């Protein structure tokens, strides 16, 4: 069975990759990608069942945070059935989305702002080295360079900040992205050769 899954994965991977280089295989590539999208939709359902099973397990065992798990399961099931009965375009469903889910995520975004400021303050306590000092100074410098001030731009700051972002930072970003792209390439090739098999392989 494990060999069978590997054969399917490698064959599908090679066909999809070949579709980018050989126009004759574009039809096959599109078909396989459409199948992958359908399977991803099915996997989303499996993922939700996994979420429910993990949290009901927590409630059953009376683990720490079990109350929140119970709340999550009840909310999830209630939203699911409401969505089936009322349909997603119903005003009540839209109110649920606009009144609970979006504000919750916005609140997390607000907490994130505080977390990031706090992280910057603690950076030098955690790791005192040249790179940390440069990181912190650059962040402060760029904030000053891009800030709107009542008396206008601080002389030289804006120009220097643009030079730092468009030359130094952009160069660094490109270097990092090239590294990430190379890593992605070799990781993809390992999966294509069957050396890494995260789909039930050993």
């Amino acid at each position, binding site marked *: 069975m494990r060999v069978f899954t590997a054969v399917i994965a490698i064959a599908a991977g090679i066909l999809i990759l070949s579709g980018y280089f050989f126009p004759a295989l574009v039809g096959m590539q599109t078909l396989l*990608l459409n199948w992958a999208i359908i399977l991803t939709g099915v996997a989303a359902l499996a993922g*939700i069942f996994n979420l429910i099973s993990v949290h009901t397990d927590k409630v059953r065992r009376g683990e720490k945070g079990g109350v929140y798990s119970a709340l999550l399961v009840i909310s999830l099931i209630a939203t699911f059935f409401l969505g089936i009965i009322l349909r997603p375009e119903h005003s009540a469903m839209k109110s649920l989305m606009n009144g609970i889910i979006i504000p919750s995520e916005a609140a997390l975004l607000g907490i994130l702002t505080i977390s990031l400021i706090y992280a910057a303050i603690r950076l030098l306590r955690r790791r005192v080295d040249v790179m940390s000092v440069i990181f912190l100074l650059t962040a402060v410098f760029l904030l000053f360079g891009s800030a709107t001030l009542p008396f206008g731009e601080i002389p030289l700051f804006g120009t220097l900040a643009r030079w730092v972002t468009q030359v130094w930072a952009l160069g660094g970003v490109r270097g990092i992205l090239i*590294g*990430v792209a190379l890593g992605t390439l070799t990781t*993809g090739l390992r999966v294509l050769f069957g*050396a890494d098999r995260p789909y039930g392989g050993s």
Partner: protein
Amino acid sequence: MIIIELIILAVSAILLLVITLWKRKSPAKLHEIPALAQLYRLLGLSVEDGTRLHISLGSGSLLDARGGSALAGLAMLRHIAERTSVSDKPSVASAGTSVLGLLSQDTLQAGYRVAGVEELYAPTTGRVAGLSPFGYAAGAMNISQDENVSANIMVGNFGPEVALITDASERVNVATVGASDNLAGQAVLFANTQDPLIGEELFSTAAYLGGAPSHLASLTVQDILRWSIILVLLGGAVFEILRTI
């Protein structure tokens, strides 16, 4: 352009195959990366202490370019699962997409199987923590805080929301090691973790945890390609300078 891409792909594939065969015979010497040395220590400590490791795989989709980091995270998870499968508190993996959640379960099970303790595998150790980046961060924060976790290892696609996970971990003295293929996520991890992993170091975790020859070979291939790109960039710059003189 397509021809150049095809040549790069073919050369990389051939190099990977040849170097994998070569690495099987000669042991590799890897330079030290502090974050990965710490990760290695944390693995041993978690088994000795009877505490849990939480491996966060991020929200990378396997249907786009972010899939590479997700696959690198799964390759690392496979080794961690094998090593910590006999621990009193087995490792927990969390994912921000369903497909990644299912693959994390399969990967954990494969690790247990190789360690010869498949009967100890519990499907709930591979989890989907949330289906949006912030939803995932909220779900993953709780795992670090509630489940006797000693270290939080984040390898995958994370945006700035990763700060919520690292912050929650730090509040309960959970060690953090993190790497992301997302630039905003990397910047946040640089400020929020003791030893950050930068750029392509994300893809070397499996090799440093004692991975297969193919993992070591992929590091060598990355080095060869990186030097080739450096030479092409320098050559191009020199050519342009000479052309304008």
